[in-house]
């Protein structure tokens, strides 16, 4: 690069500065962005990610999901939207929160259930204003059969239940 700069004359200093700055920033950013390639692909971070989403083999369509359900007077159950269930509108983050709250010990799960019930008590929108209880449940789905046959769980186990007081 030096022989190039020598031939540039008086503007060489500015050119040298711009070249070194551009090259340094480029090298550092590219090295950082590519660095996750040299670590375990499942060790994700932000913003330097391994982008592991949907990369694991998924040989069957089974899904085991921990859900927050609103229970209605006729016995119907409806999954609560992420914002109402956890206060977070992002479904993936809400799902992780539900997991950590439900399996973080009895005390934490009970508190979480009551927190959700409190949020529903204050909800004035249909259908949530008619709900009578909140359930934390672990449900097992066959995802392909869910669309091709019936949208129901293969089995479901209730983990926590708390009443909604109005």
């Amino acid at each position, binding site marked *: 690069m030096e022989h190039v700069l020598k031939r*540039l004359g008086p503007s060489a200093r500015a050119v040298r500065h711009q070249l070194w700055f551009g*090259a340094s*920033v480029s090298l550092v950013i590219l090295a950082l962005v590519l660095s996750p390639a040299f670590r375990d692909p499942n060790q994700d971070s932000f913003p330097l990610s391994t*982008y592991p989403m949907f990369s694991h083999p998924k040989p069957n369509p089974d*899904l085991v*999901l921990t859900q927050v359900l609103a229970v209605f007077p006729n016995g119907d159950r409806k999954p609560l939207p992420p914002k109402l269930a956890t206060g977070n509108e992002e479904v993936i983050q*809400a799902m992780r929160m539900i997991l950590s709250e439900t399996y*973080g010990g009895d005390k*934490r799960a009970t508190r979480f259930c009551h927190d959700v019930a409190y949020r529903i008590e204050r909800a004035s929108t249909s259908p949530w204003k008619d709900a009578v209880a909140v359930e934390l449940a672990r449900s097992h789905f066959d995802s392909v059969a869910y669309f091709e046959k019936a949208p129901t769980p293969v089995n479901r186990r209730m983990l926590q239940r708390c009443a909604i007081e109005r």
Partner: protein
Amino acid sequence: MTETVAPRWLRWWFPQVPAERIAMLRILVGTYSVLYFGVRLPYWLSFARHRAVQFRPVGVLSALDAPLDSTAYQALVLLTFVGSVFFLLGFWYRGVAPLFAACLFVVLTYANSWGGILHTDNLWLLHVVILSLAPAADVFSLDARRASVPVSPHFKYGWAIRLMCGVCVCVYFLAALAKLENAGWGFIEGASLRNYVAIDNVRKIELGSPHSAFAALFLPYPAVFQFLAAGSLALELGAPLVMLNQKAAKLWSIAMWSFHVGVLALMAILFLYPVTFIAFAPFFHTERLAPLLQRCLGKDRPKKASAISPS
């Protein structure tokens, strides 16, 4: 640096491009930042109210053992929004743009520190960081209005655009590597992808979130998913090669955009930055959008246009 004296690799990474090209990229990324960050202000602010027990810090915040003070965090979110406006307008750019990039870096990292890392904002943040370190406000900016120095094509505008393209292809390449490391070449058989589409949609329905209306139509046809899996892996794995050919890069950009539209249609996962096509804008001659910008600003007459463009 002239065309004749510089080595070929240097000219490739530092191409002489018009200032208008990188300025238009700043305006595109800046507009996205103002709108996306602004519309989602309640979402970013909501992390100040989360319970400390849910805090799982990542990245530069990994060393924290407790959430940030909620008032300080909310102030940081608002500062980031103000910074995005300054970034878009090119106002005090050399000082404010890096500050905006740093604030955005912290806010997005904080938002990803609550148990689930999302991958929708990575490329946007990387592009903001690169633009904030480049002279992207020499034209079409409030700074340019004050300085009114003539601007001609220069290599100092070229490296940042090349780098924006580089990180764009890198993130897709990394996604391909993760698929090959975790699932191997068996990924292209499409069975995993089909199950993912089914599982992801059921998960969304059963967590009370919007889901795809199209997934159920395609699930009975495994061949569709074989095609989609092979196609997406080929696009991701071949991404770095498109850096070598401008035409290939443009075609690849359109193909990747179609891929994201497909993901949106089949899985209701919105990668907004690529879907708006701004993620791929660095592969194009964005200065051609300048007349459109000038029309939008009501400055379509040449004399008036020079008021915002000293070139």
